[in-house]
């Protein structure tokens, strides 16, 4: 966990609106665990003020510039352009200076070896699953169910295949793979592999649906959540989710940045009941 001033090694559009950025990041090969993230800061220009969180897609090495020099460690992030920050990121080039805080948060629990593993990724939610798959394929059967709105939202699937992961693509408009929602595929797979564990990341409605499926079947589930974040380190309390057993009298909040972003489904309050609270100044 460090804040590093570093540079961009490459930044390329890999599908309409999706970019893959390679960033020089010493020590990340040793430190980064599947499911962890970084807080990314575009230097110099003020907007955005706050850093933006991105999952670590993978870590790796590039050839040293000269024989005898150590190889350079990097991380890759994959991001979708959705607003101010990502809008500026897409215009960054090789050599541009940025800052990286991380690796942050609690990653995935790898689960028992030899167990069947089903990863469910929705769109950009696929990002944190790659390092997870990398670790898991060593001793488990891993299947990736990958969903998106259209074919443009299906990214890096061949890279998962190269790891030896079985991949199953579905799109809402049928433009790639099966037509429909990824949760349909999940149900079929769970019928076939009832003892599998599930690891999911994607938009909230997808996560919700996956949780319902798994809780009905008693399938172990880990989810990686998103939240608006200011600090990324547990200090601002901006990114909380309600933990299991939360009530207004016995509040139980978990920071997505610190106790997450990966949670065992059982740790969370899936009912997401509202607990309005008296406003108070200072933090307001």
């Amino acid at each position, binding site marked *: 966990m460090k804040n590093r001033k570093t540079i961009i090694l490459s930044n390329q559009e890999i599908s309409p609106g999706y970019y893959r950025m390679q960033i020089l990041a010493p020590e990340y090969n040793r430190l980064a665990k599947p499911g962890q993230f970084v807080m990314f800061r575009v230097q110099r220009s003020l907007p955005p003020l706050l850093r933006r969180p991105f999952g670590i897609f993978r870590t790796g090495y590039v050839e040293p510039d000269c024989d005898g020099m150590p190889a350079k460690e990097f991380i890759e992030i994959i991001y979708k352009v959705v607003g101010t920050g990502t809008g500026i990121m897409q215009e960054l080039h090789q050599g541009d200076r940025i800052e990286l805080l991380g690796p942050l948060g609690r990653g995935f629990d790898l689960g028992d070896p030899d167990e069947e593993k089903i990863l469910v990724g929705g769109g950009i939610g696929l990002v944190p699953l790659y390092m997870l798959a990398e670790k898991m394929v060593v001793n488990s059967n891993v299947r990736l169910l990958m969903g998106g709105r259209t074919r443009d939202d299906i990214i890096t699937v061949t890279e998962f295949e190269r790891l030896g992961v079985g991949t199953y693509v579905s799109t809402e408009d049928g433009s790639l793979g099966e037509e429909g929602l990824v949760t349909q595929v999940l149900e079929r797979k769970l019928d076939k592999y009832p003892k599998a564990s599930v690891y999911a990341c994607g938009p909230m409605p997808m996560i919700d649906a996956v949780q319902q499926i798994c809780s009905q079947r008693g399938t172990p589930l880990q989810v990686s959540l998103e939240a608006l974040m*200011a600090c990324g380190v547990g*200090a601002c309390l*901006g990114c*909380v989710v309600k933990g299991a057993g939360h009530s207004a009298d016995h509040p139980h909040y978990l920071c997505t940045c610190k106790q997450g972003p990966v949670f065992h489904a059982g740790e969370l309050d899936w009912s997401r009941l509202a607990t309005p609270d008296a406003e108070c100044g*200072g933090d307001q």
Partner: protein
Amino acid sequence: MAAQKTKTGTPVRPNMAVEIAGLKLKNPVMPASGTFGYGEEYAPYLDLNRLGAIITKGLSLQPKAGNETPRICETVSGMLNAIGLQNVGIEAFIEDKMPFLAQYDAPVIVNFFGNTRDEYAELAARLDELPGVAALEMNISCPNVKQGGIVFGTEAGAAHEVVALVRKKTRKPLIVKLTPNVTDIQVTARAVEDAGADAISLINTLTGMAVDVKTRKPRIANTIGGLSGPAIRPIAVRMVHQVVQAVKVPVIGIGGISRAMDALEFLIVGARAVQVGTANFVDPHAMATIIDGLEEFCQNEGITDINELIGTLEV
């Protein structure tokens, strides 16, 4: 002006220590409450011993759940937050947070609040007993639930009363933190000084709001939140300037400080120390950089003691 030099030609390191209500700070830079957790969150990134003081997240008697999410959103050069003062409560604070903070030699200032006068008083009395607490910072930007929810700090009478009550409960240095959402900040400043505040810190956040035009919903669940960050700095500098002229007690400047240059504006108008808030989120190392920058500025300007700089505004 050339920097002061020793005989060997190396510049003399300026004195950076300041004193606030008997509290000696090794430098005038500390975190703003609620932006630095309980210190431990930032310990991996910053040597807490470098700080002038450590100020903790607003504390209440009972644990507090805080508001619904979303609680934060970014605005132009600022952010809105409505955390709702979520905190662990005094008991868990003593048990879980104090031992960690005790490891550092930076004085620990506890920021606290209540929703009634009695809550303030009771909590102040509890904090007064704790040897690990060097000073109290009292957040009066809270609604008085017994008075129709009017914020204590927006009404000079209410502010005076609650500060006077708290004053009776503690002999520790009492810093009162003002809300900027008032017509005349000098009036509240004088009221809390008169009620026995040893120092005044300001500004707390300005109330603000942002709307998601697609969903037509407020961008934070609480509708209204507190605006912080670089955007508010001119308002903060103005208010600190005004308060310095209105009171005799030392003033701590807060609001949009991200760089040494920003901190200097506050010191020059007369703040004895500064707090850094939102900038910690942007750069966990911000306070260390600011401390270094202040020292460098003093050296470049030939200032041997940072206290010489305070209140040197030329109007």
